[in-house]
């Protein structure tokens, strides 16, 4: 029971750690994607089949593309050597932001009651998952849907005004 979990934890954490240490940004992002795949493997091991596939589809399939596009479009040189922060202020801001995220996550982990037991988790059919989402969590689902639609429309508007501004005076 624990050996697969240890392997999955190794596959998830080691690429993430190495990604932070590497100087090559493309290698880092590819390792980050490997780490996301490890998280998907963890969901699969925990019996959450649907969540695992969704994780692969969204993170390994889509978010990875955004990360790679961002790296390719923003960097001029192939290998970036700059590991040291530009200024003390930036380093402090980075530490503050990272520390805040870590604090929130740690608080959430510590305050969540964990039920420890040998009982194997029951496989939930996808159909029941869907019905549950559509009946009890409709509001949340709709809110997320509207949020994503608004952000998509915002992206379209940004892209559209950008190309039109060339001929007319904006």
């Amino acid at each position, binding site marked *: 029971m624990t050996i697969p979990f240890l392997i999955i934890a190794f596959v998830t954490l080691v690429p993430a750690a190495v990604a932070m240490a590497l100087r090559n940004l*493309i290698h880092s992002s*590819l390792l980050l*994607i490997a780490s996301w795949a490890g998280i998907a493997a963890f969901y699969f091991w925990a019996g959450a089949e649907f969540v695992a596939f969704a994780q*692969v589809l969204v993170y390994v399939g889509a978010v990875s593309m955004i990360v790679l596009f961002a790296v390719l479009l923003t960097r001029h040189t192939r290998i970036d050597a700059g590991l040291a922060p530009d200024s003390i202020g930036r380093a402090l801001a980075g530490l503050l932001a990272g520390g805040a995220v870590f604090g929130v996550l740690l608080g959430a982990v510590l305050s969540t009651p964990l039920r420890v037991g040998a009982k194997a988790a029951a496989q939930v059919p996808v159909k029941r998952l869907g019905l549950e989402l559509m009946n009890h969590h409709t509001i949340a689902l709709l809110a997320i849907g509207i949020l994503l639609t608004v952000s998509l429309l915002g992206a379209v508007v940004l892209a559209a005004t950008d190309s039109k501004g060339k001929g007319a005076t904006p």
Partner: protein
Amino acid sequence: MIGATSFSPLLLAAGAGADSFLERLPLVIRDTVAGVFPAPLQWLVGSTLSIVAIVAIFGGIFAGLTLVERKMLGRIQNRPGPNRTGPMGLLQPIADGIKALTKEDIVPRSADHLLHYLAPVALLAFSILTFAVIPFGRNLVPLELDAAVLYFFAAGAASELAIFMAGWASRNKFSLLAAMRALAQLISYELPLLLSFVPIIMLAGTLSMTGIIDAQAGWQLGFIPRWYIFTPWGFAAFVIFLIAALAESNRSPFDLPEAESELIAGHLTEYSGFKYALFFMAEYFGMIALSGMAITLFLGGWRAPLPFLEFIPSYAWFGAKLLVLLLFFIWIRGTFPRLRIDQLTRLAWKFLVPLALVNLGTAAFWSLTSGWSGALQLVRWALTIAMVIGPFVLLGRGLSGTHRPRTYRYA
């Protein structure tokens, strides 16, 4: 059902076909071989046999398909195609394989060696993973998953990563351009691909491949199969799926990432020898897997097209449908010119995505009116067909407003 009584002998024959010896033969072979081994190892041997069968059969189909494709393209272009190796060029795949194996494997000095090596391997591995959930026959599902459709697209989603790795690691401007093109194209066409099969899942009420095929069982009027392609929304979704599948598998007319004439084969530029062959294998595997998906979702899976043909084993029907779809893809390749990148993305975002969304509404209407009968049934069909054709015509007119078909005076 109307024809149930008049066609009863045929239905009896169908019942016999479901459990015939040929139908059970693959399972019998697997269980016999697995039975030789001690009980704790049997599941392992059984799974290994499935994997070996998949790799061997689809590897064979890949080899045959390269020859068929070259022959067919030759015929389309009014030339004989390969005809020197063996009788009628039949041994050409073997010659190609030997050539690929013995060629020198050249890696550019400044390339990223690890990623350059990993890219074709990863691409092939991901494309083979997608075969795991496709039902090849009545009892031939390698992996029965509750969320099989999601698994298929999750496994396929990683292939764009591999293409990116290949393009970036080659350290070649053509390769990098191709990688960027591939990313843009694959992201654009993922959306219509996913949207096109949402109506199927809505109507079938399941993400399981077996469940979707079961939902397409039975006959209308006694002989028309209840496949989803024979409904108006299903047909529209099938066309969208086919176009998006062509783009997802980098096939012509969407082969911009490897455009031979402008990008000198794009991400394949710096690949030679067997790595190059692996890329080709992965492309064909992807095409075969997407065809298998199209068969499962729209063409009734392994089901026979007519009631009295059900004595033919189910995997033969799957193979026949697969062959038809693959030949269709080759035909498309021989017929259509390549799109430009702006035409390609415009087609996806302005045409296919809105049509797929409208189609979702059409399918919802179809599902809500399933109780209508008699004259209302005709109204239902007419309304749904109008909901499919109307947006298609309006959107097509709207998008091609200023562009008229080109006329040549001195052609």
